[in-house]
């Protein structure tokens, strides 16, 4: 029995299950928010899995996701700006939840890893993930004001 594995399973089931539901149904605004939140959840699951399997190199998956995931959400925010324009999604609560979960998990993993280069990498992933999530949420809530049908960017 491995606590990290339990945490990963619980986070996956409780965090990503609703994401699949949220992205498959409902208005477009809810779907983009679900996609953005899903990126954070999976990034954290990857971190927990690397700790559960005692494979530090699996952290690279979380690193790539922390870099590219928010970029993907920004793509949606940019190219769907017309459709999101009427009622841009505000998901402050969800952003706070994702940021606090990221902080808790990264700190716990840093404590478990001990000082060293691996810890620096973990902190970097945590910072990139939280910053990316916050920026992506802000972009969804109206970061591309002029990218309407009239302008061809």
């Amino acid at each position, binding site marked *: 029995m491995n606590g990290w594995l339990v945490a990963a399973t619980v986070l996956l089931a409780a965090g990503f299950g609703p994401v699949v539901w949220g992205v498959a149904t409902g208005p477009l605004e809810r779907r983009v928010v679900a996609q953005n939140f899903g990126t954070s959840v999976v990034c954290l699951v990857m971190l927990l899995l690397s700790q559960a399997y005692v494979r530090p190199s699996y952290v690279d998956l979380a690193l790539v996701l922390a*870099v590219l995931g928010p970029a993907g959400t920004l793509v949606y925010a940019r190219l769907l700006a017309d459709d999101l324009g009427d009622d841009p999604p505000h998901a402050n609560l969800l952003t706070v939840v994702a940021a606090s979960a990221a902080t808790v998990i990264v700190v716990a993993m840093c404590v478990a890893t001990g000082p060293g280069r691996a810890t620096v990498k973990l902190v970097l992933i945590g910072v990139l993930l939280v910053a990316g999530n916050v920026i992506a949420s802000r972009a969804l809530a109206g970061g591309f004001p002029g990218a309407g049908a009239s302008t061809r960017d």
Partner: protein
Amino acid sequence: MSRRMRMWVLATGGLAVAVLLVAGYARLPHFGGAVHPYGERAVSAALARHTANVISSVNFDLRAFDTLGEETILFGAVLGTVVLLRQTRDEREVPPAPAEVAPPVRRYALIMLPVALLTGLYVVAHGQLSPGGGFQGGVVVATALHLLYIGADYRALEKIRPVGTYEVGDAAGEAAYLVLGVAGLLGGSAFLANTLLPYGTFNTLASGGTVPLLNAAVGMEVACAVVVLLARFLDQAVEIEEDNGSAMGKES
């Protein structure tokens, strides 16, 4: 062919596929079993050549010829896209209007551009040690450049992206893989054989013989190929418009 006949053909084909699949699955080793004949051989071969990431050893050493095929598929696919999405005679180029982007998003994209580039290069360089390699890293590098489109606009991206250079890079990456293969043939034993270079110290950057070099070649090819691919799509979506007179009816 009548509808009834078509359904019969479909049913026959579906049944044949189902039979083949079931027959294939029946012979597979059980999920999560203890015996892995291929895995054990691959792991010992990878360790003998000081490649810590066995998957990289399989992809770029044991079955490097397969990877050449995969690389060529991407090369051919991008070539096809370039031909299909070219600007045709009844289309004209419209300069894209600048886009408004909120300052925090712009700052984020500009800060993340070098970070993502570095991450991509890190993934390429550590292919022989940790999950990743030329393909994954190459895609990250190419995506990184397009943060400039997200953070600014298409004109800013076009300034750092002379498509011609990336087309040359695409071909050069593909050629480098072939050259390394021929080098194995001339200097060692066989095409793409990993007998040319010293295997190095296990679990360091300079290990695995030709694996890191092949990774670099694939990384260059994939990064350039994805940039060229996205350039064609972006041109079509942002710049190229049909002439008004020919917009009706004539589909090209």
